[in-house]
């Protein structure tokens, strides 16, 4: 279903020739799965203004905590999610403050 929707959006936007507009029309979901005590994918690249969502699929709570403290989730129980919109380009390293071996990175590019 997701694939169908992507195609539809792409089709509509082709005549506009404006990639950035795609985000205004239908902001892409950027999801990081928390599973088996890892962030997957461990690193993702997004454009500034993108909302990234983490979903905990483990039976154990985790957190999403920026190393520079620019964002920090509460403890996410199973199937809880946390979202943060990255406005500024840069590299955002984060970890699980309960299981600090779990680390990940969001790379934010200028649109």
């Amino acid at each position, binding site marked *: 279903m997701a694939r169908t929707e992507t195609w539809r959006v792409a089709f509509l936007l082709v005549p506009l020739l404006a990639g950035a507009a795609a985000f205004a029309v239908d902001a892409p979901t950027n999801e990081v799965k928390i*599973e*088996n*005590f890892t962030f997957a994918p461990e690193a993702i690249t997004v454009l500034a203004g993108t909302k990234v969502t983490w979903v905990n699929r483990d*039976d154990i*709570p985790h957190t999403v905590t920026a190393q520079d403290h620019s964002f920090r989730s509460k403890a996410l129980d199973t199937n809880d999610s946390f979202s943060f919109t990255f406005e500024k380009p840069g590299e955002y390293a984060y970890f699980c403050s*309960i*299981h*600090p*071996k779990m680390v990940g990175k969001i790379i934010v590019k200028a649109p």
Partner: protein
Amino acid sequence: MNGSDHGEPLQDDDDGVSRRGFLRCMTWAGTGVLWMANDGLPRSVGLSSALAATAPKPTGLTFLQISDSHIGFDRPPNTDVLATLREAVAKIKTLPVKPSFMIHTGDISHLSKEKEFDDANQLIREVGLPVFYVPGEHDVLDDEQGKLYRDRYGKGTKGAGWYSFDQHGIHFIGLVNVVDLKAGGLGNLGEEQLKWLEDDVRGLSASTPIVVFAHIPLWSLYPEWGWGTDDGARALSFLKRFGSVTVLNGHIHQIMQKVEGNVAFHTARATAFPQPAPGTAPGPGPMQVPAGELRKYLGVAHVNFVPGNKHLAIIDTPLA
């Protein structure tokens, strides 16, 4: 390194370590570990053994360790962690010799909620023993990173909740290695606590038996899963001169033991759910076991050589 169902002595009789009358593991029963100190030297015995006639007769201090109750956890393999804690409590109450006190090595709660702490306390209180706690990482998940825990359990403690006390000539030290964890790292004690520890033991004679308890193992048990403490070795360096050091941890929901020099390390089983042996699963989450098997991993029905299946049955019976 693994615990065994039968009492295989650790370092029994062939080197200098054991001649110090070191720690010997008789058997383990998961719900709790009964510690006995004869002549000031701790030894441990599993609850089912302690309940049986084969238990060594304690002549000195006895105390009990429970760990990882995870009250609030409600998923397979244990959707009723209160029930298994209740069974552990019932079992403790039937011990023929009443222990002097109990220690809880953390993860009392699953999500640091008031109700979870309340529920745990209500059950644990039934044992009728003083309980000494240290927090697990699940007990410091509130917005203020452990304030709830400290308000409840932290009276008379320092920093994030560390403290020491003396009983029967043994010096007990409760450490906190679950706060202010660093990205990419393991458990963490931190400078302030390390300095306190160094001062705390400075005046003690080297013959004083030391018992250290903390949630995350103080030694590098399996760092790939975060099972270790980054500055644990520094803490242990302050204890090098002591003839008997026993380190009791939880966190990994299974028994692991190691003897290194004068230091004996032990981890206790949980009362909530088992975790896989190091490296045997994609991650250290709860280990799924058949419903009928769960209590074997928690130890309530761990009855290998105890002629006391009936003890377990009695323990499951609510007290009058």
